């Protein structure tokens, strides 16, 4: 039995450390905020110009001037601050954000990430993803291990246009956890009930294992 989206978010939340400034992407990464371990305080950055993101507002209290990067209404905390997009990306590009957790379409064994474009099909844009993977000190990708079609997403080389080259430090999928470094990919954890054989069968990239 592989991990659910919630399990993956909870596992990603274990990468957080007390005092971290963190940027969470859209999708499963957003759920990570629900699993911040007790006793750990992190500050969430929203790249549209806010540090210290609070919870969603109560019904009837949504403020159109206060949204997150996913365009959802949010609230502020006593410690919050607002700033321009240029200042926001000075934080990101300048290495001031400790951790970025984002989604992926493909991750390659050399740490390349593709998550913004399918040529001829999907035209949405990269938003802040290219800046985040280039500038944030540690990049964690959370994604399903395979496409719905069964095609591998942890691949030898990305076939989709890259978001960044050699940028992924850790990959969390529904099957397990992979560290990616200069020496390649290493499987460090298996999801409960998942076998090494199953991971091998569903992975195109070469990987070592410590499980």
């Amino acid at each position, binding site marked *: 039995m592989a991990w659910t989206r919630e399990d993956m978010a909870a596992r990603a939340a274990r990468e957080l450390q007390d005092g971290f400034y963190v940027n969470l992407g859209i999708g499963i990464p957003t759920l990570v905020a629900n699993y*911040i371990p007790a006793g750990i305080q992190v500050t969430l950055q929203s790249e549209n110009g806010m540090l210290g993101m609070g*919870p969603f507002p109560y019904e009837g209290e949504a403020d159109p001037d206060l949204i997150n990067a996913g365009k959802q209404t949010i609230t502020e905390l006593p410690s919050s601050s607002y700033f321009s997009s240029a200042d926001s990306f000075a934080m990101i590009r300048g290495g001031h954000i400790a951790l970025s957790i984002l989604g992926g379409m493909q991750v390659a064994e050399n740490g390349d990430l593709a998550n913004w474009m399918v040529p001829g099909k999907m035209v949405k844009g990269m938003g802040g993803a290219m800046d985040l993977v280039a500038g944030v000190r540690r990049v964690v990708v959370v994604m399903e291990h395979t496409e719905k079609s069964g095609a591998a997403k942890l691949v030898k080389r990305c076939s989709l246009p890259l978001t960044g080259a050699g940028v992924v430090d850790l990959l969390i999928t529904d099957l397990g956890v992979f560290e990616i470094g200069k020496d390649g990919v290493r499987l460090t954890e298996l999801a409960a009930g998942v076998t090494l054989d199953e991971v091998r069968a569903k992975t195109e990239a070469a990987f070592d294992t410590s499980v």
Partner: protein
Amino acid sequence: MASKLRDNAGQALEGVLFDGMTIMAGGFGLCGIPENLIDGIRNAGVTDLTVISNNCGIDDFGLGVLLAAGQIKKMISSYVGENKLFEKLYLSGELELEFNPQGTLAERIRAGGAGIPAFFTKTGVGTLVAEGKEVREFDGELYVMERGLVADLSIVKAWKGDAEGNLVYRKTARNFNPMMATAGKVTLVEVEELVPVGTLDPDQIHTPGIFVDGIFRGAHFEKRIERVTTRPRETALAGENA
């Protein structure tokens, strides 16, 4: 000194617009967009516009209105995923599109307004974004050269402003507005509250009036929300621990 005060969007835009011009428009999604000036450009009917904005509104609001009217020739944006018409026009070749990483777009505008013609950034090295651009090594790392951006016109939304053009933004409605205010050959601003000179605390002004050519109180602000997301009272949901 000539007054910067204008009555409304139509008057502010008089003599400023021409076919084929480049326009920067502030906002992130629908948050902090100059809705009155967008309507004014729609009513003026200018075409072949190159529009620089992080997003392109939605199908029937924000910059999507100019798209639907066929006034936009090219967009420079970081994300256009909320606009179906955009995707259709682009895939059919009717619309030119230049994607910039969001931070690169913000910095290009900041640089343009500050008189900096180009800069180097790590963002996009080894991707489509770096193709055809100079890549240079600094301190053992690769960086791609990006150009500063300026526009014929910048349209900006602020919360409060005065006749001098001093501006204060509110919460995340600030986003791209301050940089764009600096990077327009002409910068026009719509505010929710036009306050008497001397009312704003000089220490709290986000955009000093030097960057502003014309200012008016917007006739209406719909301030539509793309994704109203709420939580029930007394129950913790996403972000509660943040």
